[in-house]
């Protein structure tokens, strides 16, 4: 893979590659980078320009403080070790996308705007990112109705050519994803941790190999599980899909709840919630907050899931606006 100079600059500035956790110079956060990106846009420059600047020039061009310029200059020096680490990742089957890449999912830019992650690590078919599809979310522990629902949506996506989006974790995620892949469909797993480990799983590996699966994460490919990263990636599931179906949610706590309420508030896409007499309290409360009902027993035909979702939701989606931000 060849890295464009813009992407190279973004990787140097915003990724942890080639940095130890204890390093004095941590990479730029979104909050750090966005103002600089806007500054560059305003003077019609691209990130690659930064690669050739020294501290003084950085300070003048970006209108930043001495310390900030020093930090940026320092981050930009690590191109050597990034080359080594990227080579290592690629040999494992992992690649990167940055906000400056043409292939970066437009939906993230449209929906998340400047909180779209600057760097994505992925394994598999990147063209799947942002293809029409349905997100399935929910807690790891499922009742019977939840399981049936996860499987139904997975199968339905597989049979009707929709991408199944999920968090790639155990429970609802893997049930729906496997259902989609087993019915010859495609899936995208948006991981909160351990991409390196996930691609060692034989089923994942085969699906990636066939081009049916893309696993993607905004976190380091070797990042261990943490509650924080699990919360942080939820919005990345919603913002890639056309519809979301919440299978089971706790009430007012937990990742599923937080993610679903955020999605409802942001109006990225129509959010459905599995609706049946024994549903968890969280499901009920999400419906009260404006989520659509996804009935159990489920709609009849697998093939018509998309039509059904379309008919049962109204266009409440926030206007997408394309940002040329990198």
């Amino acid at each position: 893979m060849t890295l464009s100079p813009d992407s190279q600059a973004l990787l140097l500035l915003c990724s942890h590659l080639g940095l130890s956790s204890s390093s004095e110079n941590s990479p730029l956060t979104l909050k750090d980078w966005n103002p600089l990106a806007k500054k560059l846009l305003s003077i019609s420059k691209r990130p690659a320009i930064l690669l050739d600047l020294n501290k003084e020039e950085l300070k003048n061009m970006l209108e930043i403080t001495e310390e900030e310029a020093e930090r940026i200059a320092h981050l930009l020096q690590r191109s050597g070790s990034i080359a080594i680490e990227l080579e290592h990742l690629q040999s494992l089957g992992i690649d990167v996308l940055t906000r400056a890449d043409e292939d970066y999912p437009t939906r993230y830019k449209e929906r998340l705007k400047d909180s779209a992650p600057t760097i994505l690590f992925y394994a598999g078919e990147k063209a799947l990112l942002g293809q029409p599809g349905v997100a399935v979310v929910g807690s790891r522990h499922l009742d019977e109705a939840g399981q049936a629902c996860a499987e139904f949506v997975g199968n339905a996506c597989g049979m009707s050519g929709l991408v199944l989006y999920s968090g790639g974790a155990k429970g609802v995620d893997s049930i729906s994803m496997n259902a989609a892949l087993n019915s010859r469909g495609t899936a995208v797993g948006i991981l909160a941790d351990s991409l390196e480990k996930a691609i060692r799983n034989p089923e994942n590996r085969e699906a990636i190999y066939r081009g049916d699966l893309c696993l993607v994460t905004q976190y380091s490919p070797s990042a261990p599980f943490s509650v924080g990263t699990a919360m942080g990636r939820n919005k990345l599931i919603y913002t890639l899909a056309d519809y979301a179906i919440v299978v089971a949610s706790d009430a007012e706590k937990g990742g599923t709840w937080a993610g679903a309420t955020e999605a409802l508030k942001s109006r990225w896409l129509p959010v459905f919630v599995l609706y049946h007499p024994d549903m968890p309290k969280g499901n009920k409360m999400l419906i009260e907050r404006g989520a659509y009902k996804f009935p159990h027993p489920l709609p009849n035909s697998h093939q018509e899931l998309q039509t059904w979702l379309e008919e049962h939701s109204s266009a409440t989606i926030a206007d997408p606006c394309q940002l040329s931000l990198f």
Partner: protein
Amino acid sequence: MDKRYTLMLLRKMIGEDKHFRPGQWEAIEAIAIKKQRALVVQRTGWGKSLVYFLATKLLREQGSGPTILISPLLSLMRNQIVMAEKIGIRAFTINSANRAAWSAIEAALAKDECDLILISPERLNNAHFIKEVLPKISGRIGLFVVDEAHCISDWGHDFRPDYRRIVRIVQMLPEGVPILGTTATANDRVVEDVKVQLGPGLTVLRGPLARESLRLQNIQLSNQSERLAWLAENLPKFKGSGIVYCLTVADTERVTNWLKQKGFSAEAYHAGNDENLDRPELEQAFLKNEIKILVATVALGMGFDKPDIDFVIHFQRPGSVVAYYQQVGRAGRAVEKSYGILLSGIEDDQIQNYFIESAFPSLQVTQNLLEVLEQSEGLSLYEILAKVNTSKSMAEKALKLLEVDGAVGQTYDKKVLYFRTPNAWHPDIERSNRVQNLRKSELAQMQAYVDHDGCLMQFLLNALDDPHATACGRCANCRGRGLPTEVAQKLVIEAENFLKSDHIVIQPRKQWPVGLFPDQKRNIPLEYKNNAGLSLCYYGDAGWGNLVRSGKYYDNHFSDELVKASVHLICDIWQPDPFPSWVTAIPSTRHPNLVPDFARRLAGHLRVPFYSVIRRIREAPEQKTMQNGFMQARNVINTIQIDQRVSQEPVLLVDDIIDSGWTLTMAGYLLKKQGNGQVYPFTLAQATSRNANG
């Protein structure tokens, strides 16, 4: 200004009266001042380490990060480190052998107190290195040095798969990072290839490769005994110390034993399986001339730098002219007169062809390996060997190639696990054929060198496309005289007798193959372990080896001569105590009587009874088709049975040829499990091919 300053530094390192050698300053200027990418083709001993030390110094003074030196060497020589320290260069090595020093080195890197770090190409793909070491330098690689850069090229004589990784990394390095490739052995084709792979902007700096002090001579003596005799007769003529290169580990040991017997100060040096062999210690003793003759395989290789080597003698012929040039070039770096003598013999082609054929794992093995990995999340090497019938070294080779191709990755969970990556993999048959054909043509060129009657140095230099090549006026062909090419018959007979009495110890296996008895400890319990045993000879060698071969494959009968030799070896030399009080043998299904018949006659001469107690219970694939310990051991316990307990007295367990030793280990285990006494293994011959390399 820069040049004067750099010269001042150089003098600090190597002496006030010294100057740049031609090409040194140009190389330093290209990388440290012009920040270019350069390839330096200069003979060994020219001073490439001076170039990267001085360039590192200049770059560090400009605020650059440390130099990363990638080299197949394990470490820098002590004297190089001392030299670098004189201009304040702090150089370190990170390798698997100095784990204890890692944290100190990492701390030095973190404090920017390391100027140069030497690593092997493999380390570039090591998770610890990438995640812990690299971040410490915050990626500020000041200079990227690729030592032995010819390894990048398929056309090089020493292609190493790991170097493909270096190429990919170099291609991702930004333009501002200077790169220095160094080699002493690149012909035009290799230089062109390296140029293509390292980028078109590469400056090539090429110097003359001739060695002014070296006197070359080729002597053809086909028999080992003649060559041993030649060594004994001619080595006393050299005043200083030198190297005798052999192709196999077994040969280094045999030649060493002979030389010791003849009163020489000689030691064997190889990377084979010998706990008592301490390579760094041998190197030190040799450097200090405490050992006069080092009898070595190619394990004594790149980076070993002893300036006062008087002679390099090849007991067997290397596989290529370039390899020969490199090895013979160790002589005479700082002495006025030195000798490079190439002896060659009948066994050379056989060994070289084996090397060529075993250079690449077969497609079948590679595919089986991938298939096994595809069904798992990760397997250890031993788990793989229990499922794929291939030797450990072949499996390691295949895994290495697959890793470089990105088809296999490594992870660590208490042990190293290999796993299949999602990257596609296509066999590159064309490449392996190309490399094999290249090796064959190199072998032919080497033979042409042996037969060459013109200037020998010129032949070598032409093969390396050295534009400065002219007749040297020093080699035996130029001068029309040299060391004697014939040897005294008396000494040849003595060497022949030596070869016949040179026996080989069978070390008992200490551990079961991994996974054979999953519920037991790895160590073979004492009560089931064999005693040490002996083999009469190496299979196919001069001495007894040829008799064993014809007995096994032509006559279906081992001659009485072999019985007598075995009796002599057992009774007069070995004298096991307590002496075996009975003999048994391992029958094969194809030749059920061959070994028992020999063992029965042997028992008669030893005046002890022969009992045939080992029985083949089913048709087994030939043991030699089993490629690793697990497969071999399982093949034995599945197919042989011990009929009865004979005696608690010690037994001599006889087989014709020992290879991996699992047949004898498992048969001994079964014998002892039946309640029989101590087991002494004895075989007519030891196979050599599998441990030929190293």
